[in-house]
């Protein structure tokens, strides 16, 4: 019997400090056992439990894309016991990864469609995975227009800044980067909150256009009315939730919203699904 609680042993290969407040670091892991990478076959939007031996596990969205081989990447905010300890770890340290867990963004549904990605703050990790996945030469033709609205408090709080700049230069993806406020006179992107930029930049709704929203509750709260105004149906608004988790496989009982477990039945739900369930997230 496979033990779903047993993590794959991994080694920290690289650590990148992402943001100016140094609270977000990206960890690149390589699997210690050959073969484990194949077993950890994932889709963009899934998450994993990062297992810091002696401290515990944390559920974190996978930031690397299935099209990137040889490693997996996670961007972790320093918040609690495990994430704080992880931030003090160094390249070469051994830990574990358990997963992949949860569903993913609905790639079968999204194929052949326009995709609007709306992200805020550090909830951009699985969105990065999705963008890299869609822009892969083997995949790009499977999707129509790709629009990305991504905001952070300041330029220095944006994740993956080099990649954002590279995507800005491409003509097969429309980037709308924004910050809440900026002092830099050379800032050449948008200034304003994500909902306001969404209202200006997001394409109007149609049956072939899906919005994926990932961000802090306040951003989601004010972006949803904008999408309603633009005519997005609630089955065309896709959201990724977070809740406290332990098992990650729908057994330990804490992350449920109604009868659905965020860990196993989610973390990705359409707004139409969420409308039918208690909002306990």
């Amino acid at each position, binding site marked *: 019997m496979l033990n779903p609680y047993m993590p794959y042993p991994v080694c920290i290969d690289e650590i990148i400090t992402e943001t100016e407040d140094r609270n977000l670091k990206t960890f690149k892991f390589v699997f*210690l056992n050959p073969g484990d990478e194949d077993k950890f076959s994932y889709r963009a939007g899934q998450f994993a439990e990062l297992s810091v*031996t002696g401290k*515990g596990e944390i559920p974190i969205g996978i930031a690397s894309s299935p099209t990137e081989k040889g490693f997996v990447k996670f961007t972790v905010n320093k918040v609690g016991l495990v994430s704080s300890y992880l931030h003090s770890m160094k390249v070469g340290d051994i830990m*574990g990864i358990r997963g992949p867990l949860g569903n993913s963004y609905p790639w079968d549904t999204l194929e052949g469609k326009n995709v609007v990605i709306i992200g805020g703050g550090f909830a951009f990790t699985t969105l990065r995975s999705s963008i890299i996945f869609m822009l892969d030469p083997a995949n790009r033709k499977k999707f129509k227009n790709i629009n990305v609205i991504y905001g952070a408090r300041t330029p220095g709080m944006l994740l993956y800044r080099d990649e954002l700049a590279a995507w800005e230069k491409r003509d097969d993806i429309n980037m709308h980067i924004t910050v809440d406020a900026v002092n830099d006179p050379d800032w050449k992107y948008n200034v304003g909150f994500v909902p306001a930029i969404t209202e200006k930049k997001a394409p109007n709704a149609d049956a072939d256009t899906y919005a994926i929203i990932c961000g802090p509750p306040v951003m989601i709260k004010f972006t949803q009315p904008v999408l309603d105004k633009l005519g997005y149906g609630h089955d065309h608004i896709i959201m990724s939730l977070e809740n406290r988790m332990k098992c990650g496989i729908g057994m330990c009982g804490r992350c449920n919203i109604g*009868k659905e477990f965020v860990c*196993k039945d989610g973390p990705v739900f359409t707004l139409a699904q969420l409308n039918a369930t*208690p909002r306990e*997230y």
Partner: protein
Amino acid sequence: MKVIKIDKNDWAGGIGKIQSSYRLYGPVKGDAFHDFKALEKGELPDLNFFNTRVSPKSVVYPQSEVMFEYSLDEKDAEHHILKDAAKDYSPKAVLGIRPCDAASFLLVKRNFDTPEYKDPYWIRSYEATTFVGYACNNPCSTCFCTTAGSGPFNEEGLDVLLVDEGDCYYAKVITSKGENLLNAAGWKTEADGGAPDKIAALGKEAGSKIGSSVATDQLKDKKTTELYEAPFWEDVSFACINCGTCTYLCPTCWCFDIQDENSGCSGVRMRNWDSCMFPLFTIHGTGHNPRGTKLQRVRQRFMHKLKYYVDKYDNGIQCVGCGRCIRSCPVNIDIRRVCDMMNSYDPKACACPAK
């Protein structure tokens, strides 16, 4: 259906024989209450009880259980890599489990044994266990098993059903696992042909003594969001002190926590029973808590048992009617009352009393 007759004079001897090939658990009287314990060699289960204070779920699912071991010493070749903890899945048997409690394992199994994931600890422990039930000739006043999918002589989840018949026990063989245990005990005398009728009559009599009930027929058709927003949760949860006694005693509560515990340069990853009554159960790292108030937590407990479970598995409520939470609740919250409120809830009905 084979029925074995066990003369009470042969009881102790048979149990001694069982213990040579099974780890045995049974009800034992403490200072004031019976609880299920591992029986020492020669120790007999005390069947002079209504039911135990805590359910026997720990026989399969210990309150604390080590899952993995690890070394944090970088001099060890495999430091920081989890290793399976040693486990004993040799045969065990629980003697004297009440039918409601035995049925609870079938409900809990739906959580731990799923098409996508198998919890190896729960499943292997469950499979190693032989369940010898003890029919309830005299149920308690808080029992409502007959309307909660079980009953005082219910056989679901059992391998053998023992029925007290004065000088002897009738042992109704339900599975081959149960027959093996009876053979190991040397209990082989078949009861006379009248035994099945006698058991049925006793069962009927016991069923008629169950004095309370729940109505569950409407739960499935209720809208989740409407039940969730019902005004009665304020009243139901008002007196609750979130002590967690209900979930601790409950045979069908399975929620758990996972923690790493270190001692020097080594440690274990273990799991412990947890409870939806506690705010830490759901609190986010940021401090945000989706079930931060006691109303939300009390509602979660009842909605899980009586609505979410019903919808998820389409196989009844997540409750077997043992009545433990009713007997032990310090503020008299009664699941029977809550179940009836949910079952009869009509959001369109005026909440104000008629003038």
